[in-house]
């Protein structure tokens, strides 16, 4: 880097931060550096750009303190009018996980996310970004920042009575969710999976209200069904949207014991037996058709949705009947 360039970049960083908040000298770092060592207010040189590091993204876990993801940095692009970006450093890991007592292999793969980013370029229901290949072929991803809450945060922040939620918020949420599910079906048709479908992996963009899928670097190994684990995630999200948040047996025990007394094992989620999916027993307003869709994810189900297309056929029909 030419010294003049460096000074110009530092000046831009100073202008962004303001003189009082700027360090005496900025540290310039590169993306092949250990991501743990890349720190707040460092300037990262990547490709033809310079990025000012503003912080580290966190993994939001339900009811647990946020966990920092040191390989994911919040930055501003110093050569693009301080546009907010997310930079994901190369971090590969393969490990064994378990769900409902079933063990399976998972991988966090930067290669997968880079591949999908290319495929979803221009698709409004997926996060957008580009990949900068580093030495040894490691893909560093520069993602557009999405300004808006996750679906989980949105539902938790509503604080409405259920009847009000059902009539005023649910129709619009369901419409946008259907579009978002259709996008996931499209991704599956491209031979890809999301790998970690959860309420906090959908962001609601404040600019247009669209639901956008984020964080598709996970892959899982399965012999029998390529899309089953993704379908499980979609079922959980649908139940959370219909129920204005996940409905647990613990909640019902504390708040509505008379409802809990009417529930059977078959009314709960097939994998997470503390979550209720037969939500019509909790909220009688829910139409029969919509509840039938949910029941495909229950412990009492005899038929499962194998594809998003199958799920959407029923869900769209149920939405029309609402």
């Amino acid at each position, binding site marked *: 880097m030419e010294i003049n360039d460096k000074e110009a970049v530092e000046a831009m960083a100073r202008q962004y931060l303001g003189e009082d908040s700027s360090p005496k000298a900025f540290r310039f770092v590169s993306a092949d550096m250990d991501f743990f060592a890349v720190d707040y207010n460092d300037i990262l040189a990547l490709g033809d750009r310079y990025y000012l590091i503003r912080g580290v993204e966190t993994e939001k876990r339900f009811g647990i303190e946020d966990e920092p993801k040191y390989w994911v940095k919040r930055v501003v692009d110093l050569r693009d009018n301080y546009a907010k970006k997310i930079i994901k450093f190369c971090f590969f890991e393969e490990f064994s996980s378990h769900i409902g007592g079933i063990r399976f292999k998972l991988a966090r793969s930067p290669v997968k996310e880079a591949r999908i980013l290319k495929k979803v370029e221009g698709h409004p229901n997926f996060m957008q970004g580009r990949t900068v290949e580093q030495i040894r072929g490691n893909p560093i991803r520069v993602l557009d920042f999405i300004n808006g809450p996750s679906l989980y945060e949105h539902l938790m922040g509503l604080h409405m009575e259920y009847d009000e939620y059902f009539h005023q918020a649910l129709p619009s949420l369901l419409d946008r969710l259907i579009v978002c599910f259709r996008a996931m079906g499209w991704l599956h048709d491209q031979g890809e999976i999301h790998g970690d479908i959860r309420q906090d992996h959908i962001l609601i963009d404040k600019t247009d209200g669209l639901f956008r899928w984020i964080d598709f670097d996970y892959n899982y*190994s399965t012999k*029998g*069904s390529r899309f089953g684990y993704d379908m499980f995630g979609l079922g959980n999200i649908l139940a959370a949207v219909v129920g204005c948040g996940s409905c647990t047996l613990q909640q019902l025990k504390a708040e509505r014991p008379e409802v809990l007394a009417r529930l059977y094992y078959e009314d709960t989620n097939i994998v997470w037996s503390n979550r209720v999916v037969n939500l019509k027993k909790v909220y009688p307003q829910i139409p029969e058709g919509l509840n039938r869709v949910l029941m495909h994810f229950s412990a009492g189900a005899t038929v499962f949705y194998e594809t998003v297309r199958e799920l959407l056929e029923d869900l769209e029909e149920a939405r029309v009947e609402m």
Partner: protein
Amino acid sequence: MGEPDPGKNILLSIDNSENSRRAIRYVANIVGSSGDYRITILNIIEDMGEDFFPSAAERQNYIEKQKQTSAALLAEARNIMREHAVPEECIRTEQVTAPSGYIAESIIRHAQHENKGTVVVGRRGISKKEEFLFGSVSSKIVNYAKDCTVWVVE
């Protein structure tokens, strides 16, 4: 050797499970020394794809190891057949690589391509929730195989 009756043209798909070994013995018992049957013993090598490996070399290394394990499995199956006096010329062994999540599809495709009238698999007996999350190879074969008989051995 002429073409056997399609029902006697058997695809026996195996893996490294005890139920799979039971399936081998079951087929060997039925076939015996008659010489009327043609058996292809198939082992699918699961290719988890580039996402599960930090480099292409490590992926290739993994596949090579899987091929060796597969070859040992097929040799073991052939031995079991031999012990049951199944004529050597009636047996063929084959390795096929299939992407993760598409094992059943690969078995069905193989059966169709080779005009197999009977498909035999072992069943692990997984729980309903495991079948929901990660699928069942044997259930998928039962549901989707066409123009053949499916034997599921437990």
